[in-house]
Every structure is written in C-alpha cells, then in structure tokens.
C-alpha cells in the first residue's frame, strides 16, 4: 500500500545571478507562487547540512537544480541517500542531505531530484538563457501536475521529456 504523503518539501537551489545556475530557485519561485497545500518551498544558493533537519520533517523532498549535462529539457528521478563528502565546499549534495536526515534524525523521507538542463553559467547578473527558460517551463508543467496529484509511488524510473 502506498505511503500517505502529507508534507512535501521543495528546495530549489543555485545562484540566480549566474544565468542558468538560477534554474533551481526559479523552480522554487514559480511553485511557491501557487501556494499549494502541504507544500513547503525553499530557495537557497546551495544545500547545507542544516537542511537535513528540515528535510527530516517531511514525507517527500524534491531538490531542484540546474544541470550542466542532464538530458533535455529536464530529468526527474528518485534519489537515494548516499554517503559522500566534497573536497572543500561548504555545500552538500542532495543525496548527502538525505543521508544526514536518515542518520541524524531517523528520517524516512522519500527524495527526488529535478535537474533542469542549463547552458550558460559564466555570466554575472544574467537572466536565464532562452533555451533554459523553455526547459524550465516544461519542468514546471510536470512538477505542477505531480504536486497536485502527490502520487510519488510510481516514480521509480528516470523521467525525461523531450
């Protein structure tokens, strides 16, 4: 029987001042404006360890980020908690946030990664590129429907729309 999903957390992260790196926050902003019941939306520059505490308070977490190499226009896939550790960054990866939530707060959260394909990351204070905007629109359409139905049980395979 499918587990009931009451509390969903969406974290869109990236740097909106760096062109397509802002795709994650753009996802968060658009979804946040919908004020969907049971959905908590956060936008941040990067993921950090304390995100694990908030993740642990939810049934489902969706991380939204720009990607330099995912399939176009976006990919959406289940995320498994994974041990890791980066060299020197103060940020952590989504799978590490989930691993921290599991290990530290005994979380049973179900995680998903929404990666929206970006192309331009090297400009300051630049808007999303046109291609990234198109990818964002498609990703939002998909995510908006998913958040309305809250059916996360059949999403075991990578979804990539073209």
């Amino acid at each position: 029987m499918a587990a009931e999903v009451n509390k969903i957390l969406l974290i869109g992260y990236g740097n909106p001042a760096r062109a397509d790196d802002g795709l994650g926050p753009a996802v968060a902003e658009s979804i946040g404006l919908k004020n969907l019941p049971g959905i908590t939306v956060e936008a941040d520059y990067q993921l950090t360890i304390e995100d694990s505490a908030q993740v642990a308070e939810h049934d489902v977490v969706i991380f939204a980020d720009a990607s330099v190499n995912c399939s176009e226009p976006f990919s959406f896939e289940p995320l498994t908690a994974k041990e890791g550790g980066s060299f020197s960054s103060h940020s952590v990866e989504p799978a590490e946030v989930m691993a921290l939530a599991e290990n530290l707060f005994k979380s049973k959260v179900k995680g998903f990664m929404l990666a929206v394909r970006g192309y331009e990351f090297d400009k300051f204070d630049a808007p999303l590129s046109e291609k990234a905007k198109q990818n964002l629109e498609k990703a939002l359409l998909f995510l908006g429907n998913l958040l309305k139905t809250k059916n996360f049980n059949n999403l075991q395979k990578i979804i990539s729309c073209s």
Partner: protein
Amino acid sequence: MSNSKSKRVIIEPVTRVEGHGKVSILLDENNKVTQARFHIVEFRGFERFVQGRPYWEMPVLVQRLCGICPVSHHLAAAKAMDKIVGVDKLTPTAEKMRRLMHYGQMFQSHALHFFHLCSPDLLFGFDADPKIRNVIGVAIKYPELAVQGVMMRKYGQEIIKATAGKKIHGTGAIPGGINKNLSIAERDVFLKDLKQMLEWSKGALKIAKDYTVANLDTLKPFGSFDSNHLSLIRKDGAMDLYHGNLRAITADGKKIFDQVDYSNYLDYIAEEVKSWSYMKFPFIKSLGPKKGWYRVGPLARVNTCDFIDTPLAEAARKEFMAVTGGRPNNITMAYHWARMIELLHSIEKIDELLHDKDLQGTNLVVKGQRRNEGVGLIEAPRGTLFHHYKVNDDDQVVMANLIVSTTHNNEPMNLAVQKVAADFIDGVPNITEGLLNRIEVAIRAYDPCLSCATHAMGKMPLKVTLFDYQGNEIASKTKE
C-alpha cells in the same frame, strides 16, 4: 621556470567562473618536487560588473559573490557605503545589530567548517578511507557530534535571518545603518538555546585543542612555515571581528605596522599579478612581494591580538599561545584550534549582545555629508575582507576593488601545498591516496572559499597533476 631541466607548466585558459581547486606539481630528474602550485580559479569580473550601478545597491548586490559568506560581503560593502554617505559612527542599535549578524555568521561558518569539513580528518585520521572520512562518516560514528554541528549551524543561520531579513542575501545593513531591530520575541528564541550553544562550542574547542596538543610533533611540520600575519585589531589591542584598525606582525610577533586606518590600506598593501594564476598575490609594501606575504583568518587573528575580550575565549587563547611559548603560532593545522577559539568567542559575543537593550532601539540610521570614496573592512570567517569603492556625482559606482580572504591566503596555501608535496612525493613519481589526502588537509586548514557564486551539478573537483622534468604529465588524480 625554475631550472633548465624542467619545463613550464601551462595552465589552460579556464572559462568557468565558479571555484575549484587545481594543483600542479613539477618534479626534477630525481623526482624531487621543484614546484607546486595551487591554482584557484577566481573570476574578478565582479569589480567590473558593479560599475555603473547605484552605490546603495552594493550591500545587497555584492552578496552574489558568494553563497558561503554573503553576510561578510554584505557588511563590508555596507561599511564602505557608510563612508560614502558620510557616516563615521552608527547608532548603537545599528552597530550592535550588524555585530549580531556578523557573529551569527562567524558562528555558523566556523561550526560548519569544523563539523563538516575538518572533523572527519581529525576524528578518522588523514589516511582514513575518503568514503568514511566525511560528514556522513561522522554522522554514523559520532551522531551526537554531527547533530551538534547541524544545530549550531542552524542557530547561526537563524540569527542571520533575524538580523538581515533572510538567511542568504539579506538586506539588513543599509548605508548609514540598519533597517530593523531585534524584537523581544526574536531575542527570546535565541536566548532559549544559548546555553546549549555555549556548551557545544566548548566541546568543539576541546576536540580541536586536544587533537592538536596530542599530535603536535606530527602537526608542527605539516604544511607549516613562518609567516607574517595580518588582521583588524581594536584600539586597545583586543580581537575585534567587526571593526578596528589594521595590524601586521612578523612570524616572531614584531609589529610591521599597527593601528593603521584601513581607509589607507593602499599605502600598506599591494597586489602582485602572476602569469600562472588569475588570483592576485597581496603583500605588505614595506617588505616587498618576496617577504611581504602574510596569512589572514583565525590563526592570524589569534596571533595578532593582545587579548580577547570574552573570558572563555581569552582563557583558550592563553592556552593556545602557551604551546609556542607566547610566540605567534605558525603551525598551519593550528588554524582549526584558533577557529574554535573564535567559535567560542562568537557565542560569548552573541550572549553579550542578546542581553543588550540597544538591540531593541529604534534609532536605526544616520545621515551625513556625501563622499565619493569609501573603504570597508571586516574580519570574515576566512580572514580580512576588503571592499573599496569610488562613486561619481550621479551616485554610480565607478571603481570597485575587492580583496577576499582567500586571496590574502593565496601564497600561504601555495607554500603549504609545496611543503606537503615535497615531504610526501620525493623520489616517488606518483600521486598516492596519502598525498592527495594530505594536500587536501593542508588546503582545508585555511578554509578557502572555492565554491564562490555558482555550483551547478557536476562541478567541484580538486585535481592534482604531476609533471616530470620534461613537462610531461605523468599522473593525475581528482577528488570529487
């Protein structure tokens, strides 16, 4: 290049603007290290980008430089803009709110570095499998410690949110003051957890101190060297992380300059450009580029100050200085211990500020006679941060010069890498896991900011490449 039997290492043009670490090591015919360089890809285009923008945007705009320490950029720019609007002294409420914001930033940043990045090295050892030598490994083996790290970071972030309006890229500090005070309700939330934060800070300090003292023989030579040290200092010689004058000392503790008004920094500090790095190399003018480089950050700050004005951190400073007989501590790995002294100092300062009724004051902004130039300095978690702007009569920024902490530590980090490489690679033309680990540990002691500004999935390696005396690449390893 260093000799006729070695070849120039060409650094390919790098277009990526986000940070990543790249280390090149050059060997001689006997496979001894002749040169090791730590290349940080730093894009200084931001200084150009802000030109033409109105000056009042700066405190918010410059935070986009960095996702890790936006508060430091926010406050350094705000301090520079205070000068632009002709304000030399803020109201007590404005200054204390900014200080609370800053100590919240210092607290969360130091906690994060210690528990997330440094503690795995200390708890598991340099040679431990990287698969467990990380924060998840700590979470599994030392869950209580890991929870402390998360909750301390969260506490500091909430202070930032309460003082700056948002956790990331807040708007609290404005030219000439601050745009909000701290409500009683907000204050009481922080007071509730204060004692716990203090206890955990003491615990973290003990771990760092005990580790350093127990391993002193190993740590003393590890990536270490004598250096000058630079930081802001209060007029009475106390450590002050928010404001003060510049002091620089030699490796022996002799003052190179003292109580220098930082608005005049260009009379004392210059920046050298090197062909192989996008990053500049700052140095003390009177000593020249070869001898004038220096370290900044926790180690430098504990070395340069005469005392710390909070009791627990001062007691810890005395213990720290006793290890080197009162002489400045030049042990690179002692950065961690110094950082935890500052962690404790920060929570003591937060305690002090939360009990100060000025935080509920309503006099938030001061106005003055408009100026065309302003310099703002602050002691960011990683070290002294310089912001310098010129503004035209139309209120547009026409010049910006930013020297970030990691830039000050550029030369020291290069030396640390060179020393570690020389100690562990001589005669063996190979990049072992042990070498990679140690280079990583030496760089990490400085807590450099390599991830400024953007991070998109799939970007963030440390790459070490080994070249033989003919310039041929003979080995390369990447730590993701």
